[in-house]
């Protein structure tokens, strides 16, 4: 019984890690641009498609495909960031909603037009099960947890010590002051956006081997799972996002086991409503930042 619960918690940590890597990009983009990126799941999808393409058409090994998936997404993110996201800085909030929703439709349907709407089979990664603490787990899932920890340590260091991290924090606090002291706000916005998109793509490629199928509409559900995470974590809060993602992942896993699989998606949306009602600024901040 106890080991069963422990196994479910580990399952939750794995899915939480996936949410965390996607959500942290979305929350950083919000911090800088003040816009929820509704197209965020599409970068997850693009990364996966990039890797799938590399494996299927060029027979490349999985690690190379991973790099290609992320780079392909970065290239698309540069274009989208340059022409759309940079213009959102300082624009009214509805601009961001419409622009990113539009981008989501364009990206998703372009992929469907090019590759067809059917499910593709992702043939790569490390799917052999390994035995840990008395239960089995695909190697890939262990990799996901490790990468998630590395990503968050890296981001924490970057945001605290690097010049770009400091600029990002500054822009998220006050755009006008940044402009006055000579921070290139559009440049910071663009870089944050590319970083966020790449993280989403990384998460996509990492999960593809265990999720097996790749298809054009796969990003949508990720966007909607990510929303409750970033709101729970406090918009723009990197550390909060990590814990919120883990909480959601574990809660989903326990609900799927002890209540029923059909109620799994309810968890995220129910939490979203509760958090918005009682702690709209997130679980981990004392007061609202925005």
């Amino acid at each position, binding site marked *: 019984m106890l080991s*069963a619960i422990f*196994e*479910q918690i580990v*399952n939750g940590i*794995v*899915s939480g890690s996936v949410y965390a890597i996607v959500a942290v990009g979305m929350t950083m983009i919000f911090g800088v641009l003040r816009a929820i990126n509704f197209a965020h799941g599409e970068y997850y999808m693009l990364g996966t498609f990039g890797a799938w393409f590399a494996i299927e058409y060029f027979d490349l090994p999985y690690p190379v495909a991973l790099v290609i998936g992320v780079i392909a997404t970065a290239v698309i993110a540069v274009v989208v960031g340059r022409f759309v996201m940079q213009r959102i800085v300082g624009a009214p909030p509805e601009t961001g909603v419409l622009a990113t929703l539009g981008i989501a439709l364009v990206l998703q349907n372009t992929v*469907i037009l090019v590759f*067809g*709407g*059917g*499910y593709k*089979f992702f043939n790569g990664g490390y*799917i052999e*099960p390994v035995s840990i603490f008395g*239960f*089995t*787990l*695909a190697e890939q899932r262990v990799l996901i947890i490790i990468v998630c920890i590395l990503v968050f340590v890296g981001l924490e260091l970057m945001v605290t010590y690097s010049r770009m991290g400091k600029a990002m924090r500054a822009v998220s606090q006050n755009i006008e002051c940044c402009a006055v002291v000579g921070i290139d706000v559009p440049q910071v916005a663009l870089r944050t956006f590319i970083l966020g998109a790449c993280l989403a793509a990384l998460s996509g490629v990492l*999960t593809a081997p*265990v*999720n*097996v*199928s790749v*298809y*054009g*509409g*796969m990003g949508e*559900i990720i966007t909607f799972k990510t929303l409750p995470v970033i709101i729970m974590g406090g918009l723009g809060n990197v550390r909060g996002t990590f814990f919120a993602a883990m909480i959601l992942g574990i809660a989903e*896993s*326990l609900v*799927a*086991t002890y209540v*029923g*699989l*059909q109620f*799994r*998606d309810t968890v995220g949306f129910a939490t979203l409503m509760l958090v918005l009602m009682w702690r709209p600024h997130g679980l981990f901040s004392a007061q609202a930042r925005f």
Partner: protein
Amino acid sequence: MMSALDRRAFCIAMGLIGLGAASTDARAAEDGAVRLGIVAPMSGPNSRYGSFSLRGAQLAAEEINNAGGVGGRKIAITSGDSQGTPVEGVSATRRLIDLDKVDFIIGDVSSSVTLAMQPVAEDAGVLLLNAASSNPKITYGAGVGGFKWTFRNYPTDENRALVVIQYAAEKRGFTKFSVLSVDTDYGRAAVEFTKKYLPGFKGEVLTEDYYKEGEVDFRSVLAKIRDSGAQAIIMYGLADTTPIIARQMIEVGLAGKIPLIGNAEFNTESTIKAAPKALEGAVEAAAWLPAWDAPKSLAFVEKFKAKYRETPNNHAYVHWETVHLLAKAIEAAGSADRAKVRDALSRIKYDSAMGEVTFDDHNQARLPMILLQIENGKPAIKGAYSAEIKYPAK
């Protein structure tokens, strides 16, 4: 200024493209062809079904047209995308009826969508010939049951549930089951009918879960099933999800211990390849499969492979066969008049690859289910079973 001009040019260009597309649509309707609409999920999680369905139907139309058409008229197919959801299915059906002026509709694959399409076709007086939905309710409510314009050329889940559970209980000796099915009218109804027959075989359901279309994480529920002591998993699911579940069955240590029984394309080559260990011993009742040993069926597989370089699935076959069935009904009616074709259909005796097709008073075709088991990575056919459906007395 410059960007305003660009936008205008862009709008005009898009408008022209739209006009071009519209005029090709109009052309197809003018040549006196029999207009047939195919409603199927062409995008979304079930799009694989849709693409097979449309290709099957197109192959049949091509064969008929090359042989001179029906009564000298060619068959023109228009595709409607239901995205596998009732809302989109209904609007696709309306578009086909109102804009494309089709006389006949074959659709949809998903039971939920077909159930929603029935009243639309009924109101318009357009013949809805279903070829691939298995929820029993569709024909419970057709013919003498209500909808006069709905016909179904596909066996139902009532038949399927009985065949599967009987085999699992009598031949494999299973009594303890877990349910893991898709959360739709198809998945839920199949389980409902399974439960209706379970007590007769002293079977019990230990756990019951339904997954949403697009679900990818089954570890939690599979671990629960592993610990529950179930002997088999009753699964009425989606073909595209089967490889995901099968792979995760290997991961949590279920593979080779608890087989899948039901229907979710366990017999497809690529699915078996994805997780051979998990699918070994799986039991499935299918309306058709490529290995079915009948000359007409084997000839179809060859033709389909030659044209699309892919082995057809069940949906390709049923749509191919149903287009031929419709053509036969139009021939028997002597015209493409909807009411005459409908009457011809209810009296038809059609030689399909699965045996002779006739319709009962609920417009339900009498068709067998093929029972198969995956043995050494290949589907082995265990027989074909049919049952006359006993409709509830009103």
